[in-house]
């Protein structure tokens, strides 16, 4: 029979990745604006970032509640008027709070840009923080908090943050029921006043915004007399828990959520990029060592993965999975066995080449189009970096050897550096 072909067709390695050019502008008040102009549709996405994250707020719940309530009423418009207007334009607007900042993002047809900017300006500069919206929001949020807390993965995830950084560390501090009682409307108003001054903004635009973009941005966000210097305050060192393993029992659970991890550093560290490659081999893609062992060979889970998450003043290397309840210890053992193998045996050339090609494909995918490129660019800017970081990554991917990988595994995959949190059976 024709075409029973076990030989793979010819393929090409990815030679280079084209990063879209970023236009840099400043508004009249010196607020930086980065624009990625590309895409086949007349669609625009705008992110406006303020240094208004959980760290600046100090207490959980304040930063995110402030941002979400800003959407619930301004001096001119009620909550329902705001949502009617945005829905009528067929647009999406939301606020997302991170450790070090809050980002307001909208996506709209470019022809609605003037109206969207006008309303976003009202939301950012003149929110009214209505009492009844505040109560309603908190009540809903509390219900969600309780609901999420029923999931084994949430239980393990919350404990994991505390375990890695310490319960009082800004990166480890977790939301709890008491925070809902302690928060006040006054705190939100103060937080808004101090952290949403016009000059504190950074603006990121992606898509096809047209040629009226800069005048429009200046009209709404270019006024203010103040000067702002983005500064970082330094955080204490992580204090991982003394206990190496923490098991939380949840009655009636059929699966156990696993979180295994250690504190790490961020993307400025010279080993950060090489570790991305080791992490991919370990648990960063479908064909990874962990997926192969724990899912494809042993059938203990539907999925398992590992990730490296940079933080402004730290980082995490973590592994997460939900495993069959009775196999918890078997799964943990299998995970650490993969650590050991990476420390003793060189990664076969074939596997290493495959991972390199896979990672290059991922980069090509991630830098495809203005929207995902803009997201990456915004994150890089948070670390005072640009696409040069990825040039470096491409170089490292090309040149790293299997002995480099083994040495990294010996240095960074010491079992005693890792903490284990489980929730479930």
């Amino acid at each position, binding site marked *: *029979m*024709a*075409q*029973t*072909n*076990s030989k*793979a*067709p*010819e*393929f*090409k390695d*990815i030679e280079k990745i*084209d990063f879209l050019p970023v236009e840099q502008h400043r508004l009249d008040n010196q607020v930086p604006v980065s624009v990625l102009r590309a*895409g*086949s*549709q*007349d*669609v625009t996405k705008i992110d406006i970032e303020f240094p208004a994250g959980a760290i600046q707020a100090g207490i959980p719940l304040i930063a995110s509640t402030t941002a979400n309530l800003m959407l619930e009423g301004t001096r001119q418009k009620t*909550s*329902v008027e705001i*949502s*009617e207007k*945005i*829905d*009528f334009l*067929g647009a999406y607007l939301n606020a997302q709070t991170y450790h070090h900042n809050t980002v307001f993002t909208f*996506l709209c*047809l470019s022809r609605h840009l003037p109206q969207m900017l006008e309303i976003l300006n009202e939301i950012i500069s003149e929110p009214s923080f209505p009492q009844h919206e505040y109560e*309603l929001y908190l*009540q*809903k949020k509390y*219900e969600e908090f*309780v*609901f999420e807390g*029923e*999931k084994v993965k949430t239980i393990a995830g919350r404990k994991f943050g505390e375990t890695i950084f310490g319960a009082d560390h800004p990166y480890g501090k977790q939301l709890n029921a008491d925070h809902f009682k302690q928060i006040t409307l006054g705190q939100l108003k103060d937080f808004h006043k101090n952290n949403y001054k016009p000059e504190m903004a950074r603006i990121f635009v992606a898509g096809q915004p047209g040629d009226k973009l800069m005048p429009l941005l200046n009209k709404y966000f270019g006024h203010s007399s103040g000067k702002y210097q983005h500064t970082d305050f330094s955080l204490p060192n992580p204090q991982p828990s003394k206990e190496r393993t923490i098991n939380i029992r949840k009655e*009636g659970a059929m*699966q156990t959520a696993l979180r295994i991890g250690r504190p790490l550093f961020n993307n400025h560290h010279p080993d950060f990029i090489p570790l991305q490659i080791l992490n991919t081999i370990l648990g960063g893609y*479908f*064909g990874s060592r962990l997926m192969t062992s724990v*899912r*494809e*060979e042993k*059938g*203990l*889970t*539907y999925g398992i993965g590992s990730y490296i998450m940079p933080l402004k003043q730290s980082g995490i290397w973590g592994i997460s999975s*939900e495993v*069959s309840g009775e196999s918890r210890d078997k799964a943990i053992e299998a995970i650490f066995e993969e650590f050991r193998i990476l420390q003793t045996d060189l990664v076969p050339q074939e596997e290493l080449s*495959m*991972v390199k*090609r*896979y990672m*290059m*494909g*991922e980069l*090509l*995918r991630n830098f*495809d189009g203005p*929207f995902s490129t803009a997201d990456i660019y915004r994150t890089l800017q948070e670390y005072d970096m640009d696409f040069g970081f990825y040039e470096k990554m491409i170089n490292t991917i090309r040149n790293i050897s299997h002995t480099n990988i083994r040495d990294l595994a010996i240095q960074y995959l010491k079992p005693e550096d890792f903490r284990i949190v489980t929730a479930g059976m």
Partner: protein
Amino acid sequence: MIKYFKHTLSNGLRVVVHPDKTTPMVAVNLLYDVGARDEDPDKTGFAHLFEHLMFGGTLNIPSYDTPVQNVGGENNAWTSNDFTNYYVTLPATNLETAFWLEADRMRELDFSDKSLEVQRKVVIEEFKQRYLNQPYGDIPLLIRNLAYKVHPYRWPTIGKDISHIEDATLNDVKDFFYKHYAPNNAVLSVAGNVTPEQVFRLAEKWFGPIAAQSVQQRKLPQEPRQTEARQLTVERDVPAPYIQMVFHNGKRTDKEFYADDLLSDILSNGPSARMFQSLIKEQRLFSDVNAYIAGDRDPGLFTVTGRLMPEVSMEKAESAIRSELVKLSIDGPSDYELQKVKNKVESNLVFGEIHYLNKAMNLAQFELLGDAEEINREPERYRAVTADDVKTVAQRIFAPENCSTLYYLPQKKN
């Protein structure tokens, strides 16, 4: 407007191509005309279990994933009640690798006990992770069984019961493959940085030699009209009561589909939607509400859900939902409201045209439903819906005897 090119091979495989020069990537999407509705009632969950086995390798190519990753690609699949869909995205220069792999596993798999045994376990863990070990996770199992008495939509794609997966044999698996996996039972769509000539040539080269199979005509038992309201109450370890109401509705290809879809948008798409404003914000009865339609190939369900605030009684919650539904059946939407949801649909259609994978999946589905050109007729079909159309479908769907209601209550603690 999505520009595409079509060609059918002599073995019946339909091929659709959409060139998109703005991306260096390409998506290759293979949609098979088989889903959970094609399963035997005693062997449910099979279409989905089978989807897992499709990654177990063939005699020619022992691993499916390795060659994909080796050319910088990524792949995945999903199963629904109607379809099984496989897709690969990869650098466009390596397009041929996807054709080689997809054609190879369309021809024959390496059926092994070991592979079946492992994937059985993986799927059982998926069953637990998604349905049994999640608060409210078993609702799809309960509600389908309440709303359908004879149609195979009465079970979800994961299956009726874990035991069906546990009992699956290698013979069952082989039968399933030869019954449904054939070129004449699939649509191949390709979107990205390619030309139609290139794709048609590769399709001919790799899929052309695969023989057509005789695929049985589908004879599914159709659900009789529901003539009496149904109700089920369960107690589980959850933090808040939850209500789900489902109504029998039309199918994806009915001309009322567009009015149906806008009806669900009026109720719950976006923060200004009726249920959100009235039930959450004004009356403060719920912490979460939703309304959506299935868009299935056989008559599907219109679903309304709500998670109750503490201290709110189920009776009060249910009657508040009902009064929203009745209001729409009597008065219909206002012109402004209808325009608003149409605007949202219009921008969502534009947003949906940004990504090549999304376009590949949509083209394949429209082609399988009858004609890829429907993708370009959608905007007009939504625009043509009138307030009266919405009112008419609301009256038909929200009839009390057409409803099945599930009360999902927290267990009483001792």
